[in-house]
């Protein structure tokens, strides 16, 4: 366990020293939120306060924006030869990989905290009770855990850092094709169908319900099932790719 925490410290130091990662992970989602609320939001016909509607969506978008940094970090470890040093030192692959997952989760959760702070300043008024907040935290831990594992797998599978940077783009696009920014009902028929069945819609709806103080059990079950499935695929895929490559 001690080597995993040492590696986590290393990975986190990397983040703080990489301005691009800090911008993508923490600042860009805030810029997007400001744009949606103050520039585009006026044109949307959404009942109630738009900040209240979009904040849950932006939370998930923040998770996804942070993932490109994770894919890059994992890939550069593999391609720059430092992985051989760790292997010869008998650092287990689970220590190397779980440190990346933990760093990725930590980055996301900090970025989310900052985003919620900005949302509150912008007039976000969640109606969540204390147990609802616990649910929010639990769900976010689960979502970041699952998306981090799948991203670690993608980063391991990428041949070069360039392709690792590109590989997270679909993950960034997915929330846009969900109910994150506007309700799925308003989308074109094909897109709406996709939005209804992709993982981020139930996740965002669960989050929205919890923050709204009106949690919906059905969405929550689907959201948790998606997260568990994504995490499992990411975990198994990561380990097998790591074994093959290194």
């Amino acid at each position, binding site marked *: 366990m001690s080597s995993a925490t040492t590696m986590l410290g290393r990975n986190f130091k990397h983040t703080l020293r*990489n301005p691009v990662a800090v911008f993508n992970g923490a600042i860009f989602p805030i810029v997007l939120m400001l744009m949606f609320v103050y520039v585009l939001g006026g044109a949307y016909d959404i009942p109630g306060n738009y900040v209240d509607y979009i904040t849950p969506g932006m939370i998930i978008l923040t998770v996804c924006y942070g993932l490109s940094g994770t894919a890059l970090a994992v890939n550069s470890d593999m391609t720059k030869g430092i992985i051989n040093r760790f292997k010869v030192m008998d650092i287990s692959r689970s220590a190397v990989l779980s440190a990346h997952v933990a760093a990725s989760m930590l980055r996301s959760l900090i970025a989310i905290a900052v985003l919620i702070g900005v949302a509150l300043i912008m007039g976000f008024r969640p109606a969540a009770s204390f147990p609802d907040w616990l649910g929010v935290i639990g769900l976010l831990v689960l979502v970041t855990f699952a998306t981090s594992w799948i991203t670690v797998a993608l980063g391991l599978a990428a041949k070069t850092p360039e392709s690792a940077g590109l590989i997270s783009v679909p993950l960034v696009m997915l929330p846009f094709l969900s109910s994150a920014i506007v309700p799925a009902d308003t989308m074109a028929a094909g897109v709406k169908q996709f939005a209804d069945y992709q993982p981020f819609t139930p996740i965002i709806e669960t989050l929205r319900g919890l923050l709204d103080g009106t949690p919906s059990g059905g969405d929550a079950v689907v959201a948790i099932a998606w997260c568990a499935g994504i995490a499992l695929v990411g975990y198994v895929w990561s380990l097998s790719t790591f074994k093959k490559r290194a």
Partner: protein
Amino acid sequence: MAAGPPIVVRMTSSAITASGLRKAYKDKVVLDGIDLDVAPGTIFSLLGPNGAGKTTTVNVLTTLMKADAGTVRIAGHDVATDTKAVRAAIGVTGQFAAVDELLTGRENLKLMADLKRLGASEGKRVVADLLERFDLTESADKMSATYSGGMRRKLDLAMTLVGKPRIIFLDEPTTGLDPRSRRTMWDIIRRLVADDGVTIFLTTQYLDEADRLADRIAVLDGGRIVAQGTPAELKRQIPGSHVRLRFAGDAELDAALRLLANATRDDEDDLVLRVPSDGGARSVRTLLAQLDTESIEVEEFSVHTPDLDDVFLALTGRTSEKVNAS
């Protein structure tokens, strides 16, 4: 040239032994039956051109890769069945500096100390010692991405030394370094053996490097060891160094040939004579003075010392260039 150890009957067991190592990628054979035996406290050099299988050998010896056949024992432990014990005994510096570019030199070393579980105060002391020893104290708190190639290699080697491994593998430790950094690296390697008594296994494509550092050299070509011995033993198989003299015409060449008893004609160039020589200033001066007194004009003059190509020519009948091309 490093002074060889006195010839004694070794009672201690070898630091590294390998027998019958084979490795193939798909249908391309990379290692074709490698046998090695390295005595503790010596420098062993694996010499060969690019693509000869040097890195693959290092990877197999250091547990990074499994051989298709053959056995390896490092510090008495079997690589296949006792991987953990092997890893505890060795340090490896790969061909491409494996330093963490987003960490400072000090942080890189601290990372190694933490991973080796040295403890806070012990770790701090080891890191400070290594920075001092490798002359990196001044840049210790700069990001290692800003280091020069030579500094990076030094940091890389320093990282390998955290935890005091008894057997150190260096894969082409000076490739791409400028002459001054090469010399520094050679000094460091020699001191490691002299002061700490570690065993060093190094690969190189430079004959002079193997010559200056190694107690024993094995020449690797196409996945086989084509020669093995002390530098002196190997050099006996290589054509010696000589001076090449180029003349303006046949008259001068004939005159020189009469004057210099040990000169021979060059196979490829009609106007060139080869004169065996150690290439030193004194002997060259004597040679030129001899020609001068007879007023024989030399148009071009060069000293030729044996290099890897000569070793290859002598051992395999072809040059390393051809090995690279095939």
